[in-house]
């Protein structure tokens, strides 16, 4: 068994008959006794064994020569390096199968092995029978790679594949009919004539392909390419093209991608618990600068979109009279949310992108996003109406803003930026303070993800042109005196963010905006928003809160009702009750009934009290739990949306609520002590159909309100602020 399993083609033809004889194994264990025993067993199985008592030396052995080994068996507990760490490294760098061993086989230990990518887990003391079958891991991996190769079109037919298994010679100790299983395998192999051999070679002319070393630089390039494409659209072929690394093959990329995804999944699972992401942006001056803000956040959007009663309760707690809140940015490393956003296509990978970007960032200082002058500056000077801003990446936050009637001078630390396409790194603060005429974000895949952009003063226009992706995701955008806020072709703007064009916001124009605006966010055109336009039907303020606070000249809300989401395709439109709260109204409003479509179950009536102050109260929607899930962004547009009602917060100018339909669930709208405009209209509720198109399921307490042209229809009453037409 000299030639080993992973040799050149010629040699392997020779030895392949005796496969898995000669398979090269690297055995790593600090316990010499065990090392000796297992080694002996492996030798008896006719494998080729190299031993290492230290993980570090094993790693260097591997790095020197990847093709020297086919399989690694490693102990979990080692003094110099954790076995799982070794596992991870081997997986990423060398793409070799690794089997873990330990005398500790508790669930969490084995689970850790699984999550780190181990092929198998052996418990000590290791028995011969177990070792005899480990060759399957090598084969399995090769086959999988072969499939990739096959797909890529450059498959080398390998003849010796067919002769690999020689039933008669190999004695398997597997008790369940080893022969039959062997034969099965053999048949499988025979049928895979097109598959490449266990060699990684794609090029028919080369007999042996060296394994690719995924160095940090190479990995970085890989990550950049994936980021560019978006994790969900990242296919090996495109990644390969983008990386443009000579000698790298599609299959290398494919297998690396596979591992990478696994890695991400694991990280995101871990990250979820970390919850430690802090945004400098928010924390800093939020309190001081921002006014009070009732903060409302809840996870309206989660991958599975469920708002649990606990969440609701938590929200309620929050909502209840906590006037000044600081801005916090909870951790953002959460597993991806959805792809659904908007139009399914464009912005999708954002979150994923962020998700995987982040860990990489942390771990390896690889930046997944081109960070541009991220000014981790302090806060965003919010408009007068802002209270604390809370942007949470993970959850759809509905930012409740408490618009304050007074404009306040804000001191902000902001950097000024001229018009650029800004791609802000998550959780940064970008604040073009100066009167940039044009705060433009063109073709910006992601702006302000989880950050705050504050084109504070007199930005001529806040434009997000051609932004394909959610523009301000989980962020806060506060164009102060923007004359216009335009979003062209923007799929999603303000996903879960807050837009606060605080002052003299002349127009919010959402032209050509096919997507979702203000998804789960809050838009508060505080003052004098002259008009807002939206050309096409799109979902605006999906699940968000629009709070036109003051004297917007036109906030056309028909009878204070908000919007309906009309999409051409959708027949249903859901209406939401949009309660606008006049800023200074001290009207104590009576409860407002939400009119919801028949589909809505619990529409609660909102009773509002008009507080004298401007503290924000929050309207909670207590509905039953519903979870909504935005499956695909396609869904949003033009969906009939039944949106679950999301809560709304109240402030004296609050409007809100959306009823929704969700798969029939909850929605309750509970208002607490908010001041409501004297009139609320809640009519115009069309009956939304309960269908979720495109797989968007809204079941949740979130209500969205769609603000569409209906917005335009909204009449400006005392509290009319903006009209979105």
């Amino acid at each position, binding site marked *: 068994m000299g030639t080993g399993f992973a040799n050149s083609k010629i040699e392997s033809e020779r030895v392949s008959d005796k496969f898995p004889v000669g398979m090269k194994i690297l055995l790593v264990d600090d316990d010499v006794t*065990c090392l000796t025993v297992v080694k002996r067993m492996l030798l008896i199985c006719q494998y080729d064994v190299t031993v290492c008592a230290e993980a570090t030396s094993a790693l260097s052995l591997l790095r020197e020569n990847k093709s020297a080994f086919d399989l690694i068996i490693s102990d979990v507990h080692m003094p110099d390096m954790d076995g799982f760490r070794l596992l991870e490294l081997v997986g990423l760098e060398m793409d070799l199968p690794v089997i873990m061993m330990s*005398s500790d086989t508790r669930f969490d230990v084995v689970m850790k092995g699984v999550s780190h990518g181990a092929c198998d887990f052996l418990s000590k003391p290791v028995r011969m029978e177990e070792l005899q079958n480990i060759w399957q891991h090598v084969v399995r991996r090769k086959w999988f790679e072969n499939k990739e190769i096959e797909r890529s079109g450059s498959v080398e037919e390998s003849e010796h594949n067919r002769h690999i298994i020689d039933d008669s010679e190999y004695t398997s100790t597997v008790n369940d009919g080893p022969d039959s299983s062997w034969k099965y395998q053999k048949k499988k192999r025979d049928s895979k004539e097109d598959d490449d051999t266990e060699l990684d070679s794609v090029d028919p002319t080369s007999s042996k392909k060296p394994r690719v070393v995924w160095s940090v630089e190479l990995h970085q390039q890989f990550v950049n390419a994936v980021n560019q494409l978006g994790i969900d659209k990242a296919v090996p072929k495109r990644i390969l093209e983008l990386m443009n690394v000579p000698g790298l093959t599609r299959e290398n990329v494919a297998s690396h991608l596979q591992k990478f995804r696994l890695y991400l999944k694991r990280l995101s699972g871990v990250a979820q618990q970390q919850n430690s992401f802090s945004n400098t942006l928010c924390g800093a001056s939020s309190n001081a600068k921002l006014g009070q803000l009732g903060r409302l956040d809840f996870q309206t959007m989660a991958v599975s979109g469920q708002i649990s009663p606990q969440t609701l309760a938590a929200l309620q707690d929050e909502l209840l009279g906590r006037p000044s809140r600081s801005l916090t940015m909870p951790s953002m490393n959460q597993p991806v949310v959805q792809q659904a956003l908007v139009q399914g296509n464009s912005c999708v990978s954002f979150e994923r992108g962020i998700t995987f970007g982040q860990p990489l960032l942390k771990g390896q200082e690889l930046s997944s996003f081109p960070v541009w002058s991220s000014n981790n500056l302090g806060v965003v000077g919010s408009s007068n109406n802002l209270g604390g801003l809370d942007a949470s990446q993970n959850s759809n936050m509905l930012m409740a803003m408490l618009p304050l009637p007074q404009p306040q001078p804000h001191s902000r630390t902001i950097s000024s930026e001229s018009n650029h396409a800004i791609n802000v790194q998550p959780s940064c603060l970008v604040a073009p303070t100066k009167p940039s005429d044009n705060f433009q974000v063109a073709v910006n895949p992601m702006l302000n993800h989880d950050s705050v952009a504050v084109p504070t003063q007199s930005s001529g226009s806040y434009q997000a042109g051609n932004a394909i992706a959610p523009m301000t995701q989980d962020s806060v955008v506060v164009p102060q005196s923007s004359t216009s806020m335009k979003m062209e072709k923007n799929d999603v703007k303000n996903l879960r963010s807050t837009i606060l064009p605080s002052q003299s916001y002349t127009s919010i124009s959402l032209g050509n905006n096919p997507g979702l605006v203000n998804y789960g966010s809050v838009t508060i055109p505080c003052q004098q928003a002259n008009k807002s336009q939206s050309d096409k039907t799109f979902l605006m303020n999906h699940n968000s809160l629009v709070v036109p606070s003051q004297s917007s000249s036109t906030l056309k809300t028909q009878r204070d009702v908000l919007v309906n989401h009309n999409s051409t395709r959708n027949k249903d439109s859901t209406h939401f009750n949009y309660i606008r709260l006049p800023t200074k109204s001290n009207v104590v409003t009576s409860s407002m009934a939400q009119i919801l479509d028949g589909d809505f179950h619990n529409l609660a009536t909102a009773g509002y009290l008009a507080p004298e102050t401007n503290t924000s109260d929050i309207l909670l929607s207590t509905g039953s739990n519903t979870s909504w899930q935005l499956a695909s962004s396609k869904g949003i547009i033009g969906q009939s949306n039944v949106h679950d009602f999301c809560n709304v917060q109240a402030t004296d100018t609050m409007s809100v609520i959306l009823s929704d339909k969700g798969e029939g669930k909850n929605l309750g709208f509970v208002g607490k002590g908010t001041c409501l405009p004297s009139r609320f209209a809640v009519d115009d509720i069309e009956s939304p159909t309960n269908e979720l198109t495109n797989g968007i399921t809204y079941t949740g307490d979130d209500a969205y309100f769609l603000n569409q042209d209906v917005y335009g229809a909204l009449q400006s009453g005392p509290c009319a602020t903006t009209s979105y037409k």
Partner: protein
Amino acid sequence: MELANLQRRYLDFTSPLFHEGILDNQFTQLQQLQDESNPEFVLEVVTLFFDDSEKLLNELTRTLDQQVVDFKKVDAHVHQFKGSSASIGAQRVKNVCMAFRNYCEEMDQEGCLTCLQQLKQEYFLVKNKLETLFKLEQQIVAAGGSIPMMW
């Protein structure tokens, strides 16, 4: 007949070891790994085990003797001891290790010390038995015979 006697003595000596749980099936596996190409395999492994174990026991004694006991360290040693004893089939030793780990988790110094005592006892017991076993084997081999196997 000397050989036959030796062999019988061997069996009489060895089978109770299994019955009493001092050794388990893993030891038998080790014996199976031994063959002409590797005639001293079991002896080799067991010798390694002895060396390693004595080091571990010393470490354990030292660590548990501190004012402030580092239980993590103790646990790591015990874990290792557990692994190696399991690998050669020293079942009782392994069992004591398991109990020992529990005390470590609970940071119970007294309990740990008790376990350590027990561990030493079991270890020396198995060591003793194995040494006798090897002697008997050697005698059989010297007498030209083959070692009767337990399986």
